[in-house]
């Protein structure tokens, strides 16, 4: 299986982020993140609940020919999603225009808030997501412009901010950051970002050079796992037969 692509490794890494979640709403943002959640749903995490991206809670399966099947399971208009966010039975995997060492995330703007250099999409649901339930991030371009010492606007709150809030942040839980180069977690005493596994062919030096702050490194630093044969078949015939995932990585 020497022809396994970086995009496929990233899909599996995103899928792994949802391992153990059980019967909760998985809300992936971004293409590879979505492929990952669907892969988890079709393999080791069959109880995950997922949206079709509009307002239908959708059961995903595979036909005999390997096509993706979708069956409506429920109605989840935006106000129901908001209820689920505050209820907490949800794991979101958001994007990040900037993210810092403690996982503070910015999707709002770059520069000064009164007159930004670049207005981005806005805080969206990031403040409410992060303080209410498990949050991971998917970053398709791991570079020092994204992984910054300090973000310009905190949308999703990081571990330092959550700690300062005390009891109010008891549902805050940053889980994984999956990037084009590696998988990170926050399993250090102060909740700072830590390299957990490197994608095949990536060195620790590369990751450090692509990151604008000091990273901790897991003592058992591993290689990100490859898709097995069954997963590879699902990715290539069912989830992403046209290979759009590679485009998200800029390949």
């Amino acid at each position: 299986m020497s022809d396994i692509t970086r995009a496929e490794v990233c899909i599996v890494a995103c899928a792994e982020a949802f391992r153990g979640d059980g019967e909760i709403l998985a809300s992936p943002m971004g293409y590879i993140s979505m492929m990952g959640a669907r892969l988890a749903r079709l393999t080791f995490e069959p109880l995950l609940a997922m949206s079709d991206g509009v307002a239908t809670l959708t059961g995903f399966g595979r036909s005999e020919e390997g096509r993706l099947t979708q069956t409506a399971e429920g109605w989840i208009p935006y106000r129901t999603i908001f209820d689920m966010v505050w209820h907490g039975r949800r794991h979101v995997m958001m994007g990040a225009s900037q993210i810092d060492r403690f996982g503070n995330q910015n999707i709002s703007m770059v520069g000064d808030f009164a007159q930004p250099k670049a207005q981005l999409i806005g805080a969206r649901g990031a403040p409410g997501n992060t303080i209410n339930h498990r949050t991971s991030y998917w970053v398709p371009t791991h570079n020092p412009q994204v992984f910054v010492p300090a973000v310009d606007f905190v949308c999703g709150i990081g571990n330092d901010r959550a700690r300062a809030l005390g009891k109010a942040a008891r549902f805050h839980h940053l889980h994984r950051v999956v990037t084009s180069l590696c998988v990170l977690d926050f399993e250090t005493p102060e909740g700072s970002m830590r390299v957990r596994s490197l994608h095949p062919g990536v060195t620790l030096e590369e990751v450090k050079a692509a990151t604008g702050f000091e990273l901790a490194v897991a003592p058992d630093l591993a290689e990100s796992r490859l898709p097995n044969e069954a997963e590879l078949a699902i990715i290539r015939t069912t989830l992403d037969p046209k290979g759009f995932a590679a485009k998200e990585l800029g390949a």
Partner: protein
Amino acid sequence: MADKRMTEEEVVAQLESGMTIGIGGWGSRRKPMSLVAAIARSGLRDLTIVSYGGPDLGLLCATGKVKRAIYGFVSLDTIPLEPHFRAARQKGAIEASEIDEGMLQWGLYAAALRLPFLPTRAGLGSDVMKVNPWLKTIASPYDADETLVAMPALHLDAALVHMNLADAQGNSAFLGPDPYFDDLFCMAAERRFVSCERIVSAAELATSPLQSLRVQRWMVDGVVEAPRGAHFTECLPDYGRDEAFMKEYAASAKSPEAWTAFYDRYIAVDHKGFLAAMEQRS
């Protein structure tokens, strides 16, 4: 029975400069664009716009109508960033009140229920609290260790929403997948205006699924029949988003000349003129 039918221009005549106006829909989905365009070509100014923002906010920024925007995001969906809104922000032309999208719902709901605020965790620890000093926190009266955001009521002077069907009294149906927050916008507002694809008899409206009759006559002061009134945003199942037109709209942010050409062709004219321009285009 009250006949609440009116035109876009009659709606605008009931609005005033300086008002706070809520606009229903979500991003580039089921936005009351014919009403928004009527405001864009009016003499109104210094408006505060409350919106799950899309081209409604962009168009009003491009025409200089906006003093302040209260929003969680502004997006055209398939084009992630709204170019006219970005331009206004990056010029420092508007006051931005950016909040979590769940806080926005809570603010509308508090206004709808005539409560001063509703508590939430959303926003705590984020810079939403820093750039919006008007947002306060409160200790739970049941547990002093539990701090929450007291999301204040977002009272609206007027609300504008677009539905698929309505009767002349204002009973309205959304026939697409999501009601968004249109009923809350109406309940949070002093004056409530619904545009719709078709005005039908009460008997015909009653054939719609019961749960689609979300906006009801007690929430509505005026009804405007505006076929393709949400264009170029989607209004399912009547029509999807007009992606080609949306690209033309986005491209109009590239130069003053491009904007003037777009404005003259599609916005300066009334809704009938707009439909005619669309006819010529296809």
